[in-house]
């Protein structure tokens, strides 16, 4: 016996979750197996599609309309593999799942979101909590930092934004967060205080933490009509926290996305995993898929005699090997950082299905000396056909019932292009949709 499903998605990040959600629209049984908790909680929560062209990353101005730019992408880029229409469909799919929690769907044009370092990031979709802070909005802005959160230096960020030429006046102040004494309190602690509006000491009496925070900021306002905080304004009740602060201060309140660990990432995770639960997707987390058993394709296998089928995969549960069987599989295990692609001193590999990963033989050709240069390793991954099926070195299919999605794919540098979320959405959407279609056909 094995644990049986129709579609098995290996990996629970943005690509894996999207693939599972897309597949679950059909009448098929879908499961995600993820080695660790979803890494979405380390993500900014922004949905970037394409911020910079792949060849001029860092030197050129940000892309205004990512859909215009997709047509010019080189062969092998994940967007080229699935096509611009699939990217559009995937974004629409995301918009339906996210509902009011995300904004940006009204236009194809990239939005410009101020970051905690005072830069401006081109992105396609952003949390509703970030909406009032867009750099294209001309209203004067106050950024509020906290002396216990050194990752966000509000005066410094404000200075950087002014130097970047934003079309509004921006000022930064640093205050103490009521109810927090420690320098290294966890971001979840701030969010928990505000979520539960826990009483804190303020001016000699106990006040709800939301009112206490508003009163600290009120004194520092000088006519600005919007106020930006680091993204710690609640977790489960983030909208209520922001609305309360807006009412108390009579200004618009927005969050500046932060590095990991990231509450907007946590909220996105909650949103997607809530949708997965509603869709009946089964989720197994905390155990890795370590191996597979193949089952030769039959004579009538339309993909040809050379390609194997995956029979079942093996999940390692603290030493016990637990078989999981499905008809179709999606590989969404992440890239070099997410360990979906691994490297040692000899070679670069894809560890679960041992799919081919093209890379120079000489390790010294894997990188260039300029740290911010065009790094070959950034594009390492699995080559796929237009159906997202991994390819062998010779161009044949690795397996007839496997598709790959997200940063395990080769041919793009998500960090330089600012395309990570968009590629995960588009390829996850296509891989999940086609996997389910094969089950039902």
């Amino acid at each position: 016996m094995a644990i049986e499903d129709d579609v098995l998605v290996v990996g629970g990040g943005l690509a894996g979750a999207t693939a599972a959600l897309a597949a679950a629209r059909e009448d098929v049984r879908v499961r995600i197996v993820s080695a660790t908790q979803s890494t979405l909680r380390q993500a900014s929560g922004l949905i970037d599609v394409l911020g910079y062209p792949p060849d001029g990353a860092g030197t050129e101005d940000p892309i205004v309309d990512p859909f215009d730019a997709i047509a010019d992408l080189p062969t092998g880029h994940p967007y080229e593999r699935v096509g611009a229409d699939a990217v559009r469909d995937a974004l629409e799919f995301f918009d339906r799942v996210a509902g009011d929690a995300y904004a940006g769907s009204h236009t194809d044009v990239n939005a410009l979101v101020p970051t905690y370092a005072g830069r401006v990031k081109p992105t396609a979709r952003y949390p509703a909590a970030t909406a009032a802070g867009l750099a294209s909005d001309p209203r004067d802005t106050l950024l509020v930092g906290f002396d216990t959160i050194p990752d966000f230096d509000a005066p410094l960020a404000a200075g950087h934004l002014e130097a970047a030429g934003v079309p509004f006046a921006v000022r930064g102040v640093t205050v103490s967060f009521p109810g927090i004494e420690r320098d290294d309190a966890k971001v979840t602690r701030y969010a928990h205080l505000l979520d539960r509006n826990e009483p804190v000491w303020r001016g000699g009496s106990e006040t709800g933490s939301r009112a206490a925070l508003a009163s600290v900021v009120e004194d520092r306002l000088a006519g600005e009509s919007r106020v930006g905080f680091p993204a710690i304004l609640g977790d489960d009740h983030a909208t209520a926290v922001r609305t309360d602060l807006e009412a108390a201060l009579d200004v618009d309140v927005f969050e500046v996305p932060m590095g990991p660990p990231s509450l907007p990432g946590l909220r996105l995770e909650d949103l997607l995993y809530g949708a997965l639960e509603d869709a009946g997707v089964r989720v197994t987390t905390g155990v890795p898929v370590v191996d597979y058993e193949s089952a030769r394709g039959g004579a009538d296998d339309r993909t040809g005699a050379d390609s194997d089928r995956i029979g079942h995969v093996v999940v390692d549960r603290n030493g016990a090997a637990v078989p999981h069987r499905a008809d179709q599989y999606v590989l969404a295990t992440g890239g070099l950082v997410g360990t979906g692609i691994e490297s040692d001193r000899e070679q670069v590999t894809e560890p679960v299905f041992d799919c081919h990963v093209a890379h120079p033989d000489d390790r010294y050709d894997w990188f260039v000396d300029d740290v911010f240069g065009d790094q070959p390793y950034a594009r390492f991954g699995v080559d796929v056909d237009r159906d997202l099926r991994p390819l062998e070195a010779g161009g044949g299919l690795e397996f007839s019932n496997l598709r790959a999605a997200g940063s395990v794919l080769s041919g793009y540098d998500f960090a330089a292009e600012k395309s990570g979320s968009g590629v995960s959405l588009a390829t996850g959407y296509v891989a999940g949709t086609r996997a389910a279609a094969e089950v039902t056909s």
Partner: protein
Amino acid sequence: MSDADTTADAGRPTDEHADDENDAFEPIEVFPEAESMDLRPGADSCYKCSTCDTNCPVAEVDEEFPGPKFQGPEQWRLKRQDDHDIDETVMKCSNCMRCDSACPTDVPLSQMHNTARGAYVDDQMNTLSREYVRNRLLANYRRLAPLAATFPRTANFVMGLSAVRWLGEKTLGITSEREFPEFATETFREWFTARGGAHVENPEKRIAYFHGCYANFNTPAVAKALVRVYEHFGYEVLVPEQDCSGTPMFANGMLADARRAAETNVRELAGALEEGADVITSCSSCSMSLRQEYPELFDFVDTETVAANTWDALEYLRVHEDLEAALEGAAVGEEFDDVVYHAPCHSRNQGLDSQTIEVMNAIDGIEAHDVGDSCSGISGTYGWKAERYETSMAIGEEMFEHMAAAPAETGLTECPTCSMQMEHGSGYPVYHTLEVLEAALVGSEADGTE
């Protein structure tokens, strides 16, 4: 899985062949003395993303707790310096082990916490202090339970007295807010012996049941349910000799006690494996302990073998039997119409947090509502300590709210202490998944008198 090396003599020169050949290779000892565990590879894997901190239920409610990243890799580095003490806040860690499955680079966080806590208790804690005595007592509940179980009615009466609870708080620091769990009038082992051992003999399908202390002394109904469900599928049930799994000892830094218990368990369970049995547990902390903590902390001969052949009761049936087909058309009593399920942290860490809902959905007439990923907050002995009671309840608050919001007034979980906390915070009766399976699969077959 941790990649820490658990061999006790790692790094020590091997001079097996040195006598034979004078020019044999003699490795140089780089470090001054061999360490029992080399946690360095794990510490080096930590790139400070702090994801573990966002998962820590204690850090979320207690600003004074520095979090798993500090308690693990950072403290490990700090204490390379001889004059550096282990920070006492390590005792605030509840050993829920959530940080383990949060880590994207497999840093063995809970292993680091367990070793740091052990070192703190050994080197820095006053063994005459009230805290030490209390912790030792709580950690070694297994030692006291047999006595109480001998006179269960007396024990239940005495422990239920408010004066005794008051005294427990004043003298030992055991919170008077909680009611002590009742001792069963007949332990599971007594029942099993009295019924003449297993009712099924089957050399092909055989399991060794690690019942743990709680199912034996306090909730034998859970253990009986396991026996009946497994016998329903034709399994022969062995009940080997066993000691405490060690979980409460790890959580209190009593590693020497845990080692003694683990040695017994590994020996006995390895013996059962040789008889062709797989090891099955009904408590998620027991399985966590056998599967993960033993290989991380101990190096008895069969530690790894026992770990690799230990299964959660429900998980084993799902893989080895067609459980869903067996449940098709099954009916249960109306006490299980609507249940609210809490997945224990130690199930979550084994990737088992979703299986109960999946199986319950296969039974007609049961609506199982998942409370989501909140931690119950009691964490074994943690919530019993007077100074931790409030933290424990603050962590549990989210679970209580979800329980209240769900359209059910019966609880379901696989962890005995989570079960206590669920009852304590909601007033609902709380069952074990095996009891529901027993009702669905065995039902009236079960002889009420056995």
